[in-house]
């Protein structure tokens, strides 16, 4: 197949972020397609002798079979142990000797992987990656070590208020759906996973038609094309993914209190979000920033922390998954103020839903979100991870060009309308600790 190459200029600040000595605007994201038809997005950055490859296979923990929850996590933990002719020790020796960093992680919707190498070692590093993806051994000894480590994490999570609050939120919001299941499995399911289960999962999910790849660093497009075929070319052409239903969070209006003997209560709150491809997504992103986004100026930060000293951390973020969209926030506060804090957060969300943001807040949020986008991309890994996410989101190669204009186009009317759409659906709240005067409630 003839290779095609598209180019897209990054948004101005991003251009500069990855620009070398060339004139501003010269650096591009290249859409690279290998002879075998494998695609990647590339940012070439020759200033440092490093190469970062980030990639994702769609179909993470949601593809775990019932009764075998945690399979994706156990696969991710074991992929970089023994591979091909190398047992685990020999393979780790190879990686360490060349300072090659290879990592895999299972999330709800995808298995993510990353490779980082010095340019001088790139051929060995690409071989290592190829072997881990196409010839993992899953030796019984390695599987048992990783399984035991995952079980230990699960046991610890049973008494950690942050883990309990999060788990309670997700299993309530997504009862009966794969999103309601713990990504790392359960104390009952992990022991049931066999080596054959790991191999079957790998064959089903690690394939070419559900693969998204980004490359950043000291490598050109021709070398990337060769790498793509060499590393990923032997994977099965098609993944065998079980269909996953699209779903909305349940339990709105409910408050769930889990008793745990800790001085500080941990709180999660959230509700339905807005899908990534919904025309209102950008407005929702702005509204969320005003409510509880990353800056010290957010309403929740000001009201909960700055004015009243109720918490060290309070935040709210949009979470967009492949089959659901939510907003999810959190805080942690002392027992005798927990009820007041939960009430305050509810009031602030209600106030923003009713009246929307002010014109001044909208202007400032737009300036922040346009400026921070590039400033946050402060390493090759973060740039590559963004390029993978944009591919997973399937919002187009030209999104980086359009992003600033999309933000600027949001009017105060849009923001008010979307604030109500986003924030007026009731909250599911989970609280873990010994909060005074708070009890579980059912839906209104």
């Amino acid at each position, binding site marked *: 197949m003839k290779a095609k190459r598209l180019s897209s200029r990054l948004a101005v600040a991003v251009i500069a972020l990855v620009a070398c000595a060339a004139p501003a605007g010269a650096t591009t994201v290249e859409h690279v397609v290998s002879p075998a038809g494998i695609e990647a997005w590339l940012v070439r950055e020759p200033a440092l002798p*490093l190469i970062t490859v980030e990639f994702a296979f769609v179909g993470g923990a949601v593809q775990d079979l019932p009764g075998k929850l945690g399979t994706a996590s156990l696969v991710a933990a074991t992929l970089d142990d023994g591979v091909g002719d190398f047992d685990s020790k020999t393979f780790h020796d190879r990686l360490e000797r060349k*300072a090659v960093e290879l990592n895999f992680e299972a999330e709800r919707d995808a298995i993510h992987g990353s490779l980082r190498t*010095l*340019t001088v070692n790139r051929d060995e590093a690409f071989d290592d990656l190829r072997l881990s993806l196409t010839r993992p051994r899953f030796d019984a000894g390695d599987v048992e070590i990783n399984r*035991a480590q995952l079980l230990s994490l699960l046991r610890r999570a049973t008494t950690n208020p942050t883990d309990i609050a999060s788990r309670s939120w997700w299993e309530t919001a997504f009862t009966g759906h794969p999103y309601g299941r713990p990504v790392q499995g359960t104390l009952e399911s992990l022991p049931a996973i066999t080596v054959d289960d790991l191999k079957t999962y790998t064959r089903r999910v690690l394939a070419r038609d559900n693969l998204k790849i980004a490359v950043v660093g000291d490598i050109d497009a021709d070398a990337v094309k060769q790498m793509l075929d060499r590393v990923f070319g032997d994977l099965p052409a098609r993944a065998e993914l079980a269909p996953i239903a699209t779903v909305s969070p349940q339990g709105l209006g409910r408050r769930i209190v889990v008793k745990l003997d800790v001085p500080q209560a941990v709180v999660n709150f959230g509700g339905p979000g807005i899908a990534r491809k919904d025309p209102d997504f950008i407005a929702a992103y702005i509204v969320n920033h005003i409510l509880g986004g990353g800056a010290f100026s957010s309403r929740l930060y000001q009201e909960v922390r700055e004015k009243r000293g109720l918490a060290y951390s309070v935040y709210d973020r949009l979470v967009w998954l492949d089959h659901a969209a939510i907003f999810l926030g959190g805080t942690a506060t002392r027992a005798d103020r927990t009820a007041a804090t939960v009430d305050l957060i509810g009031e602030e969300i209600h106030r923003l839903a009713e009246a929307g943001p002010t014109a001044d807040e909208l202007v400032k949020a737009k300036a*922040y979100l346009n400026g921070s986008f590039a400033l946050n991309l402060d390493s090759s890994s973060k740039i590559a991870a963004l390029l993978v996410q944009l591919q997973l989101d399937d919002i187009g190669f030209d999104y980086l060009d359009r992003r600033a204009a999309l933000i600027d186009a949001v009017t105060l009317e849009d923001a008010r309308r979307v604030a109500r759409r986003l924030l007026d659906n009731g909250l599911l709240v989970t609280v873990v600790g010994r909060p005074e005067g708070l009890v579980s409630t059912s839906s209104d």
Partner: protein
Amino acid sequence: MPKTFALVVVLAAFAAGSVAADTEPKIAEFTLGNGLEVVVVPDHRAPVVTHMIWYKVGAADETPGKSGLAHFLEHLMFKGTALNPGDSFSREVAAVGGQENAFTTSDYTGFFQRVPRERLKEMMALEADRMTGLVLTDEVVRPELNVVLEEQNMRVANNPSGRLTEQMDAALYLNHPYGRPTIGWRSEIEKLDRDDALAFYRHFYSPNNAIVVVAGDVTVDEVKADAEETYAKVGARADIAPRRRPQEPAPQAPRTVTLADPRVEQPSVNRAYLVPSRTTAKPGESEALDVLAHALGGGGNSRLYRNLVVDQRLALNAGASYAGTALDYGKLLVYGAPKPGISLHDLEVAIDGVLAAVSEHGITEDELERAKNRLIAEAIYAQDNQAALARWYGAALATGDTVAAVRDWPDRIRAVSAEDVRAAARTWLNMRASVTGYLVQSLKPEEKHS
């Protein structure tokens, strides 16, 4: 809290022949008339700067009874000045989408902003203003004290392993203020007030007690010109006394502490050895500790992991690290988490066996080479993250190290021999200078589970 090993920026030698010599950053430093030190770390990949100020004061400089004061003041530094009242500094940063934050350790207090390059001078002006212009009222101080108490709840009170770390430090340092937690003892934090904070501020926040690090798309001349128009106008407020803290007596006895909490589902054994820091070590000593810690417990092929997790199957995890960036003392940490059914005692015996073998026989040439390659590569990887790079330089300088020492660190790692590592193990894996901390569910004698 900072990374535990020093940052490095020289790469030409490691990837010999494959790396153009001009990729090596040219670090510059100069001192203003008022005593403020300035370090410039060029990184021209993006039109962005990371601007940091490091005050050479931390929790170890507090008056006894006022623990947590350095960290509390760090929080209060965001409350505004007469010229820039309230949160106007933060608003300026947010207006361009910038990032900002601050941090405190035993030895230093730092503040940073990451902004587009053309905003550097404005950041310098704002930071210079709050070096002496802070205005505090009880109205803003009191809620912030509650914020700090919630931070303590999150990091320590809610977290059994955080509490164990506090107890181990208190036991490791018999005389030195490193034994106090940076966030403070809760009972003392609760009593801190506005007057404490202002007195501490006036005593320690002065240009002759600070270092500015600028990393990013700037030239030395630009930084110099901007610094002259901003920081140079702040008068030195006080003579800063040399930082002489009470030192540790000669170690006499191994110590143990046990922290029990019903929420502990995974017990662990943790050992801290008192060792030299980069600043106090003799030449080559801290580098030998870097290699020792990595060979012992850095990753899946280290001695401890290989031996205890893979071969003997006693532990779920095991490792080691060297925390060497400190004005007075460093720490060598070793830890292990037992598999279900294995007692902490049995695991500790096995850990001690691994340590004894390294003290006795040293490490192999192969282990030495892998550890050195890995450590030196960190120097190159570090260059990919501008803020991390600035932070490494700042932390080194704020703890008495020099730019040259940071720059030449890979050469010194390269010079470490297997014999140096063995000597470091023999000298510094000294039980008398150690604390062993046990994290357990209950203080009852350990039961064997099958």
